[in-house]
C-alpha cells in the first residue's frame, strides 16, 4: 500500500494523495531504454484553510512525445480530462503544475524545464505552481512563484522511505 505524503510549506500543507504517488512511481525510468513520462497535476484547496490536495495527475497520452530525455505534453486529452473534472465538481479543481520523469537518481531541473516553468508562471493567472520531477531514488517538488526568477525546492521524497 502506498502512503500519501504531506509536505509542510509556508503557512500551509500540501498533500500528495497515494494514488498519484503510486502512478508516478510506475513511470520511473529504471532502464536505459525507458522513455520520459509526464502529465499535469490537479488538485483542490481546502475551504477552511490554504492546504492543497493534489489528487489527480494525468498519465502520458498517445499524442505526447516521449524520448529518453524529453517529454512533450501535446495530447489534448490532458486538457479534456481536466475540463471534465472541473465541470463535474463545480469548479473546485485547479491545475497546479507539471510532473515528469528523469533518467537520474536524484532529479534536477534542466534548462528546458526551467524555461517551461517560467513560461507557465507568466501565463498562469495563479500566483504559484508546483512542479514534480520523478527520479529513480527521489521525487522532488519545486515551487515556482510569479515574478520569481528561480524555482524553490520545497520537498524531496525518498522512495525507500515511503511504503511502496
Amino acid at each position: 500500500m502506498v502512503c500519501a505524503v504531506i509536505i509542510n510549506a509556508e503557512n500551509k500543507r500540501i498533500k500528495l494523495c497515494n494514488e498519484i504517488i503510486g502512478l508516478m512511481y510506475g513511470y520511473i525510468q529504471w532502464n536505459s531504454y525507458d522513455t520520459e513520462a509526464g502529465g499535469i497535476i490537479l488538485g483542490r484547496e481546502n475551504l477552511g484553510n490554504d492546504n492543497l490536495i493534489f489528487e489527480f495527475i494525468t498519465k502520458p497520452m498517445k499524442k505526447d512525445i516521449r524520448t529518453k530525455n524529453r517529454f512533450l505534453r501535446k495530447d489534448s486529452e490532458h486538457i479534456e480530462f481536466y475540463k471534465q473534472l472541473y465541470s463535474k465538481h463545480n469548479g473546485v479543481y485547479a491545475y497546479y503544475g507539471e510532473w515528469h520523469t528523469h533518467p537520474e537518481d536524484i532529479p534536477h531541473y534542466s534548462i528546458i524545464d526551467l524555461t517551461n516553468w517560467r513560461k507557465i508562471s507568466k501565463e498562469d493567472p495563479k500566483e504559484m505552481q508546483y512542479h514534480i520531477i520523478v527520479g529513480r531514488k527521489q521525487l522532488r517538488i519545486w515551487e515556482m512563484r510569479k515574478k520569481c526568477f528561480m524555482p524553490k525546492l520545497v520537498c524531496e521524497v525518498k522512495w525507500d522511505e515511503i511504503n511502496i
Partner: protein
Amino acid sequence: MSLQKYFKEFNEKIKMDYDVKSELKDKRDILLEILRNAEGIPAFKKFDQGSYSMYLGVEPLDKEYDIDVGLRFQVNCDDYAPMDLKDKIYDLLKDHTDYGATIKKPCVTVTYKKDGEAAYHVDLVVYTYADKDDTDSQLYLARGKNSESDETCWEKSDPVGLVNYVNDKYKGDDAKEDREQFRRIIRYFKRWKNKKFSSSGNAEPPSIGITLIAVDKFEVSKKYDYLEEKYIYDDLDAVLNFAKEIKDLFKFNGISESGRCLYSIEYDLPSELKFDENTNVFKKMSDNYMTDFKEKVDALVTDLEAVKNEADEVEQCKKLNKIFGDDFPIPEVDNAAKQQMCYIPPTSSSGAR
C-alpha cells in the same frame, strides 16, 4: 468554514433535543405530583441532577433518554431505613406506566414507552438530611435494592454541590464561549463512549467520571485572530488534549492470569464536597473493563492525531466520522474546497537535457 464548522454541526446533532427534554419534564412533573399528593410520603424538595442539570445531555444511540431527579425529603436520616421511602415510591408508581417501576441501587426508575417501545425513563433519587431542620446539613442517599442486602445503606452525598462544581467551572458571560467548548468536548466524549462501549453491566465508564476529569483537566483551545478580532476555537485540539489527559490517568496494575497487562483508573469525587470517602467514580469497573477503557482511549488519541496530521478537510471529516459515528458530517468535495479558475497551459515541454 473550517473543520470547526463540522464539529459544531456534530455538536448540534448530538446535543439533547429540547423538545424531548420538555416531554421528559412533563412526565417528571406528573410523577412528582403523584408523590406530593400521596399519603405517607413526607414533604420533599425536587432538584435536577445528572447530565440534564449540567447542560451536557447527549442524544442516546439505541438507548433510552433519561432524566435524573433528586428528591430531598424533609426528614431525618436516622428516622428512616434506607429502603422505606424507596419502597413507598415504588408501590405508588409501579402501575403508573406499562413498563412499571424498578428499584435500582441508587434510585427508583420509571420507564415510559413511545410507539410501543421503551423510550425514556425518569430516575428518582431519594435523599434525607442529617438534620431535617437544617437544609445545609449532610444529605444521605438511599442506596440499595432491598432491605436484606448488606450493601443497602444511607450513603453520604452532595448532589447539589456536585452540579454546582461542574456548572461553576466557566461561569458568567465572559466565559460563555469557553464554557461552550468545554460542554461540546464533553458531549463529543459521551457520544464516543456511547458508540464504543456496551451499555450493559459496567463496561462503560460513567459519564460523571469524564465530566469531573474535564472540570479539573480540560483546557480551552483557542487562538486570537487579529484580522477577525475574535478568538477562533479549535475543538480538534481541545478533544485531543483532553483524551491525552485521560490517557495519562491510567496506572499499570499487574498482569492477569491470561497474560493481559491490566491498567486501572481512579478519580475521586471532589474532596471539598460532602461525599463518603473512597469515592472513585470508576470503582464499579472491573480490571478488564478499565483496561478496555485504556485501550480505547489510546486508540482515540492515535486516531485524533491522525486527523490532526491529515491535510485534507474532507479526509479529516471521514476519519472523525469513523471515531464519533455517523452524526459527524462528511462534506462533499465540491462544498469543502475553494472555487478555482479553469486554466491549463495548452502544451508543455520538459526534459532532462
